[in-house]
């Protein structure tokens, strides 16, 4: 390793950090006397420029990443590039929604924290070493705690941040505990060596303890049952723009990490090389270890789908509704991560492994497709909630009454986004679901994955009910108050852009699928 390589690999992260510093300098140094609106706009646009610069850096990157002692520490290219590009685009969109917001006077600090949290997200997606992963994750999480607390005028915001912080601290402890077991079992912090060493020696019960701890820690980050309790409170209390960031960017990054860990550390067929009989031996050990690990994820997935969808049915706050629906969506995604072909124990594991690589990359792509489109949609949904909340002072279902009269365009955007979340074709959410479920079944069409896919499809039929509860108030029920709702033109433009993307990507799903597949 040399520092030039390190710089080359972390160029996108560096670009974001530079942008954060520039925002702070410009806002706190040059614009001290200017009006809040101008400061917010300048800060947000600088942040967007930083995201653009980071995107450009990603497009310049070549090679696979940074190696230390022959083991990959920071990856780039491939699906990492997809996830990072997705994180940057979603960050830019949430920053655009910040323009026109007035929940805080600290424009530069807000944008800087968003950018730093996004840096953490980028780091998490590319890291292949437990220590780097943990540092990245903490950078992301600390940013999110601060963002949740940014609504200083609202008591709910402070409460939500405290809850989030306490739960988050505990989950970080779990994760670290699990990581220390992995280190103790394998003598290395690098995912490659951990997998190799564990496969060589065979698994011990401690390995499963470690995995359960890691699942608890990461399950908290992605908000799956039973580690989901923070999500409704945080989504409800945080400023809408911050909630959009938490629901999209943090989710993409955390799921990318979960995917990295399960694909590179646990799922059979990580970077293995050597003599044929050695490989055979290693793979066999890995396959034997993987089944119970996957079972844990599948149980969590099923629980999330059921609890998330059923709990969302009775919500009266739209933000809490979105939080529970996010839990359900996380359940669908986990299904894509956990499913792997079952090895029967007979015949050559190596040949079996060769037969699984194609479908595995298919399901990885499907997971990212789902994550990115979901992130896009949920940002739009929170954008609409932000506008309505700004006008009516509440995010309860009843504050959406008669929205189609008060702002027809906003109502149409909400219609498209919610139908997409419910999975109605030809909107993008439908393709995400279909693509994911088809990938799951092409990996393993056995009875268990099939039953879980059937459960997921049935549960998304349930989800239509609560999305329609909101749309019913928007379009059907009579308005109490018919005064028009004004949205900031930039917010409106962003929301229209997102709605257009949801329709266009839905009508031409090959665009995004092809793009993800091309890496």
């Amino acid at each position: 390793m040399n520092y030039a390589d390190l710089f080359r690999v972390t160029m996108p992260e560096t670009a974001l950090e530079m942008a954060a510093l520039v925002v702070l300098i410009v806002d706190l140094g040059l614009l001290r006397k200017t009006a809040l609106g101008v400061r917010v706009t300048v800060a947000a646009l600088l942040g967007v420029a930083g995201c653009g610069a980071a995107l450009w850096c990603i497009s310049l990157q070549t090679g696979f990443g940074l190696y230390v002692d022959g083991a990959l520490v920071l990856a780039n290219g491939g699906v990492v590039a997809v996830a990072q590009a997705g994180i940057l685009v979603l960050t830019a969109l949430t920053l655009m929604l910040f323009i026109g917001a007035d929940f805080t006077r600290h424009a530069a600090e807000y944008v800087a924290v968003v950018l730093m949290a996004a840096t953490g997200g980028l780091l998490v997606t590319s890291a292949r070493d437990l220590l780097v992963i943990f540092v990245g994750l903490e950078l992301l999480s600390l940013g999110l705690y601060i963002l949740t607390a940014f609504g200083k005028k609202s008591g709910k915001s402070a409460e939500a941040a405290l809850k989030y912080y306490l739960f988050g601290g505990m989950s970080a402890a779990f994760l670290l505990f699990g990581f220390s077991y992995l280190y103790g079992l394998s003598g290395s912090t690098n995912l490659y060596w951990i997998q190799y060493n564990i496969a060589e020696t065979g698994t011990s019960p401690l390995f499963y303890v470690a995995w359960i701890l890691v699942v608890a820690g990461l399950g908290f980050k992605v908000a799956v049952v039973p580690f989901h309790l923070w999500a409704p409170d945080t989504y409800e209390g945080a400023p809408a723009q911050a909630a959009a960031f938490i629901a999209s960017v943090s989710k993409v990054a955390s799921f990318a990490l979960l995917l990295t860990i399960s694909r590179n550390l646990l799922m059979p067929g990580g970077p293995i090389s050597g003599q044929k009989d050695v490989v055979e031996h290693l793979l066999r050990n890995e396959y034997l270890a993987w089944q119970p690990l996957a079972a844990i994820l599948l149980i969590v997935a099923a629980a999330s789908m059921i609890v998330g969808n059923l709990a969302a049915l009775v919500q009266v706050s739209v933000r809490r509704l979105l939080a529970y629906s996010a839990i359900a969506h996380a359940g669908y995604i986990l299904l894509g991560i956990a499913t792997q072909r079952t090895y029967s124990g007979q015949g050559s594991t190596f040949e079996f492994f060769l037969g699984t690589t194609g479908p595995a990359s298919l399901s990885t792509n499907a997971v990212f497709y789902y994550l990115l489109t979901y992130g896009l949609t949920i940002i739009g949904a929170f954008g609409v909630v932000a506008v309505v909340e700004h006008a009516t002072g509440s995010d309860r279902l009843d504050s959406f009454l008669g929205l189609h009269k008060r702002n027809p365009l906003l109502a149409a955007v909400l219609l498209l986004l919610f139908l997409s979340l419910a999975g109605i074709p030809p909107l993008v959410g439908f393709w995400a679901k279909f693509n994911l479920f088809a990938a799951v079944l092409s990996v393993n069409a056995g009875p268990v994955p099939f039953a879980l896919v059937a459960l997921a499809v049935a549960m998304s039929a349930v989800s239509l009910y609560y999305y329609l509860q909101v749309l019913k108030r928007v379009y059907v029920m009579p308005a109490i108050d018919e005064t028009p709702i004004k949205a900031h033109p930039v917010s409106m433009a962003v929301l229209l852009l997102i709605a257009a993307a949801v329709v266009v990507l839905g009508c031409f799903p090959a665009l995004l699928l092809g793009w993800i597949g091309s890496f």
Partner: protein
Amino acid sequence: MLAWTIYLSFAGALLLALLPNGRNALARWLALAVAVAGLALVVRGFAEGMGQGRITIVDIPWVPSMGIHFMLAADGISRVLILLTGLAAVAGVLFSWNIELRTNEYFAFYLALIGGVYGVFLSFDLFLLFVFYEIAIVPKYFLIAIWGSTRREYAAMKLAIYSFAGSAMVLIGLLAAYTAAGSHSTGLVDLARANFPASFQMWCFPLVFTGFAILAGMWPFHTWAPTGHVGAPTAASMLLAGVVMKLGAYGCLRVGIALFPRGLDPWGFYFIGLGSWRDVFALLAVIGIAYGALVAMVQADFKFVIGYSSVSHMGFVLLGLMTLNQIGVTGAVLQMFSHGIIAGLLFAIVGRIVYERTHTRKLAELESMHLSKRLPFAAVAFVIAGYASIGGPLFSGFWAEMQILIGAWMVRPWWTMAAGVGIVVGVAYTWRAMQKAFFSDAVPSTHTLETEHDHQLAAITWPEVTGVVMLTGVSLLVGIWPRVLLDSIEPAVKTLLAGGVR
């Protein structure tokens, strides 16, 4: 050219959605123009397709990595059903002429629904078919919830949930079939060639068939239909009964029976006298026929009578499908067309012509209004429509139900006998409703307002006359000269039964 029916409908919907509020007359004429243009395209396509098999209209790769094609094609069955859609669309616009509330949005949802229906009937890619099938759900919800009447929000939500649950079952079956066929194509033609193992078909067939049959109003999953029909505004109930229920029946035939024919094979054992899925679904169909008719007998609300009669008549369609012989399935397709026209007519008379003037649908209150004298046009129209509905000769329903009954007799004579009970009761409930609503001599009770009886009912308008004449004419034409449709249906059914859609 037929593909333009879909594009035109969606374009019209988009245009109407963007139209500023308050331009009601413009919105109406625009919707009528789109519907008529669609009908013209359909008639032309129907005439061109006479005597031909399946004609591919469009076939371009849509999602190449998953083998999904944007493939539109039409065979004899599709052509008959899009003809029905075109007619129902025009009639629906005519009977919605008096919508004043949010007119442009109304017609936007209406045309979006029509576009989805055209899409389903023309799709020859299973996936595309499913996409259009789902597109049709959302407009239905809003049409009923916003412009409906009795318990409209409940009715709309119930309908949406039932439809979505049904399509979830279909989606599971679709995913299973796609995976089992090797995940490289979703074309109906390719899937029909896939030769799914019999054990797979045995569970996938009932899943997909039930999923579609929910929308076709199969007993005991029919309960959305009467509430939905009654809650919906007139044109929406015309479309619901007229074409949307046919989407379900069409899916049963085109997907369920054509892709999984061996799912209908005998199980090899008997369970309470049932030996195959075919027996199960035929039994449910027969129960639907008799149950719908019996319940229609005792309804107090005029529109509920028609709503339950739809359940009964759709039972005939499902029974026809389960005969699996040439004459029975042909009858089922003809019944889809025939019921689409006649149910549309009945809902138009009850919901638009009568209700909009009397503001009641209670048969007990209509009894004292002497409508045969005050609304002679409605009375005559209802007599004709009622006669057509009970399957009287000279109208389309006669040929359809007769073919189904013959087909059923050839398989299991008791199916025919049980369905015959439904026909007899059908005569009774139609008669009862006709008598009570139009020809009763009851004296007004003291409860009803005197003024209600003195004031003149609004005159019949031209859109109503046009609509009634058009629908009656079509039913009469098919009744006198059934070959016009049978020439299309028969060869298509023959190919379909001979081996899916190969």
